[in-house]
């Protein structure tokens, strides 16, 4: 076992032991950090290759609402409802992604088309208020502790679930980072025409990351719904959450595996810290500072916090790669 692996195992052990030691409030925060870290990681799977989607609220919304609706109206277990929601998100991603990539809708245009998508999903949820409760939100029927309904009043269960999906998200991120398509995707993000000219299947590569990203985001949305047991179109879809996803990922650093999670940790602790520090008299104080941070971050360190740390600290100390034997 190398030193690196030992560190990883130790970190995992600490993460697993956390629920035994921290008060419920902190556990609640940690669950959110992991869940949103997972969603931001899912976004960065696309974002890091320059496919900036402002529409991930759409996938999160579909992922959250589909299992909840199926559960309330048909009593369908989330074990089936969640895969259905994820599937629907993937279909949505294909319906938008395929024509976009075929017609070379890129950059600003891609960002704005996806923004429209997230608005479509949010407004559809609001418009179908007879079924979804509209802007008042939607509460899944609670049944107490149940594996069948995937509902657990105990926070430690959701901590474990969030930890698992978060680790899964990191694994997916890593497999794409190390995978064979990585160079192809980098080439596409540099110059699509040139990438196509050297024989890269641009469409296939772009669709692949888009579908993965949408599916993971939908899964994150679903678990968000199961945990909070309350859905609101404004908080799970639409422009606000879509931008929140993009910005947290960028502030943390979308080119590093842990970047989006750092973004999640930072934004959440900023929010909570200011909320506790200022009380409710200063609603908006957190986001005011957050907004300034975002602007500064994009101007001065477009690679995010983790990206910045990597270039400053660790390059000097990183051991030389050992040649293969």
């Amino acid at each position, binding site marked *: 076992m190398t030193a690196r692996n030992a560190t990883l195992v130790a970190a995992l052990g600490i993460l697993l032991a956390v629920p035994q030691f921290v008060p419920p409030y902190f556990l609640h925060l940690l669950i959110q950090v992991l869940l949103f870290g997972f969603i931001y990681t899912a976004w960065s799977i696309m974002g890091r290759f320059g496919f900036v989607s402002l529409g991930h609220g759409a996938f999160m919304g579909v992922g959250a609402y589909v299992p909840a609706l199926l559960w309330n109206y048909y009593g369908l277990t989330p074990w089936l409802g969640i895969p259905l929601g994820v599937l629907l998100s993937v279909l949505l991603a294909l319906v938008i992604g395929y024509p976009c990539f075929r017609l070379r809708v890129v950059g*600003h245009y891609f960002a704005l088309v996806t923004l429209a998508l997230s608005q479509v999903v949010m407004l559809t949820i609001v418009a179908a208020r007879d079924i979804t409760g509209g802007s008042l939100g939607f509460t899944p029927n609670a049944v107490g502790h149940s594996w069948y309904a995937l509902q657990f009043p105990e926070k430690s269960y959701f901590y474990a679930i969030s930890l698992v999906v978060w680790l899964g998200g990191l694994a997916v991120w890593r497999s794409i980072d190390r995978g064979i398509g990585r160079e192809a995707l980098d080439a596409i993000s540099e110059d699509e025409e040139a990438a196509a000219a050297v024989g890269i299947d641009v469409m296939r590569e772009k669709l692949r990351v888009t579908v993965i990203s949408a599916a993971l985001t939908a899964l994150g949305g679903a678990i968000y719904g199961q945990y909070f047991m309350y859905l609101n179109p404004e908080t799970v879809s639409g*422009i606000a959450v879509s931008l929140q996803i993009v910005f947290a990922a960028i502030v943390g650093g979308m080119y590093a595996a842990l970047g989006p999670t750092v973004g999640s940790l930072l934004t959440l602790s900023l929010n909570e810290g200011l909320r506790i520090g200022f009380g409710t008299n200063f609603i908006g104080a957190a986001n005011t500072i957050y907004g300034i941070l975002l602007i500064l971050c994009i101007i001065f360190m477009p690679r995010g916090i983790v990206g910045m740390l990597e270039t400053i600290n660790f390059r000097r100390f990183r051991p030389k790669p050992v040649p293969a034997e």
Partner: protein
Amino acid sequence: MDFYLLEAIINGILLGGVLALLALGLNLIFGVIDVVWIAYADLVMCGMYAVYWLYSELGWPLVLAFAAAIVFVAVLGVLVHVLIIAPILGSAPINQLLATGGLLFFLQSFATLLFSTEFRNIGVRLPIIELGGIYISSARLLAFAMALLGAVALYFFLKRSFIGTAIRAIAQDRDIVGLMGVDQRSIYLVTSAIGGALAGLAACLLSLQYDVHPYIGNTFGPLIFMICVLGGLGNMIGGFVAAFIISQIIAIGGYYYSTELSYVLAFTFFIVLMFVRPRGVMTR
């Protein structure tokens, strides 16, 4: 055709005027500086608060408050350019879009901090005009007329004045213009100020019709982007036409279904059209 539908269509045309005005401002900035200000609708929100504060809290005359609001948003526009866009003018366009997205967060929450999330109204109610059984709000009529006037003024400014010519030249080829002795930086500043002033004008017109709250930009901001893209980003005439197409979809859809569904229709129409004509309705 029944009266209510006709009323909806007329209201749609009137709404289109204000949207067209905003689309013009955004298109001007995109065409010249090559940046999408995601926070453009939130500048309008700032203008509406300026009107509210000056008129309702400080008791200024309405016309003076309007003038001050327009100047205020124009200055904001310049500040946006100097503080946010100028430092990253050379980086990827998407970064500039995202930086103004940070501005969106900032403006919305700063407005919340100053004015809370309460809906505020300047309390000016213009009369409703009846025309052969059709009711038209004169606030909307005024907004429409002023928006058209603003558009025409902008047209003549761009066509006839020296700075206007330079602005159009930059939109065509930003590298050659420098060789012709035009200082790009000052043109960018003027463009940002005009874009801001248009947002300020729209703010004045909207404050006669709507309550202002910190998130009002979210309700029509996405619409303006759709309109600009639909018309072809940077294509002002296209944006103008698209504003009326979109506002008709919303008006007629709202008449037959509901407001939200009409927006869903408009956005879906936009997405579909992007696939049919990826560079805007006006391209050949």
